């Protein structure tokens, strides 16, 4: 058999991977073998964390809403707010509520007062329907 060199095939493949890991720290962007490993790890964690991201942000929104709601000092809490929201069939999601909480706190207080106050009226409302 004639002699066949591998040529530039491996180098082309590794160049792409090296480009991917070009901003990593230390040896993780310089040494070929560690670059391939780190690329795999990076992709795995990004895949996993894309689903986790949805969970994490929901947690963050809930914490922030809780913080603002508890400042009214009437022993009101996030759980009670959500219960009232569902009772009154108000379809605001936590992301929007958290944004309201940060930017325009009084608006959130208005909403919560509206929801809490009309407990008697709600029964009449459902009876009408």
């Amino acid at each position: 058999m004639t002699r066949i060199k591998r040529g530039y095939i491996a180098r082309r493949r590794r160049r792409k991977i090296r480009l991917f890991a070009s901003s990593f720290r230390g040896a993780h962007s310089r040494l070929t073998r560690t670059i391939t490993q780190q690329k795999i790890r990076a992709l795995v964690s990004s895949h996993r964390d894309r689903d986790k991201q949805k969970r994490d942000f929901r947690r963050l929104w809930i914490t922030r809403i809780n913080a603002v709601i508890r400042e009214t000092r009437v022993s009101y809490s996030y759980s009670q707010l959500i219960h009232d929201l569902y009772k009154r069939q108000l379809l605001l999601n936590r992301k929007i509520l958290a944004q309201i909480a940060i930017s325009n706190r009084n608006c959130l207080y208005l909403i919560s007062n509206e929801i809490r106050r009309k407990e008697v009226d709600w029964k009449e409302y459902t009876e009408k329907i």
Partner: protein
Amino acid sequence: QKALAGLRRIDLDGLRWRVFDAKGQVLGRLASHISTVVQGKDKPTYVPNRDEGDMCVVINAKDVCVTGRKMTDKFYRWHTGQVQDVNLILLLYIVVASWSWYIGHLKERNLKDQLAKDPTEVIRKAVLRMLPRNKLRDDRDRKLRIFAGSEHPFVDRPLEHYAMPPRQVREMRPRAKRAMIRAQKKAEQQEQDETNTKKGKRRNKVESILEI
């Protein structure tokens, strides 16, 4: 001097200074509120990767209360054993309670003794153990300033008092309630007996003078 110690390390001074009065507060319930404030969890701009809690000043740490038999039965334990000094052995004899089958290097200390020795450590341990164990824990520890008395060197700053939410005391169990009523009746009867006798009258007069 220690109180002003690490203040330079804390960068952001958009933080408020909250004052907690520990007088008559239950230890754990107070500590949970302090930990939420120190983490910054009562702000709508809470971010879990940065530490933006307010500075917490706790005063009257020696008047913190505890329910049940925890004054005598709650122990702070720690393990020594690396250093072999004469001092350690002396401490063992002085500090350890009557039960001396804790041989070796486990030392423990009563709540009562700890309050007598260093009352700030009680609240500090309680709060530290309620904070999440991550890299921000030490920074949060630096934001806690605890004082045994009611004087603190931060009087110039704009301080905000923290109003603790009212405590829901659980109703006493029937047996305990009956025992308490019996004890009260006994005390009342004893007072009545004393007022009836002559000696009691003199004692009452002396007591009233002292009260004034």
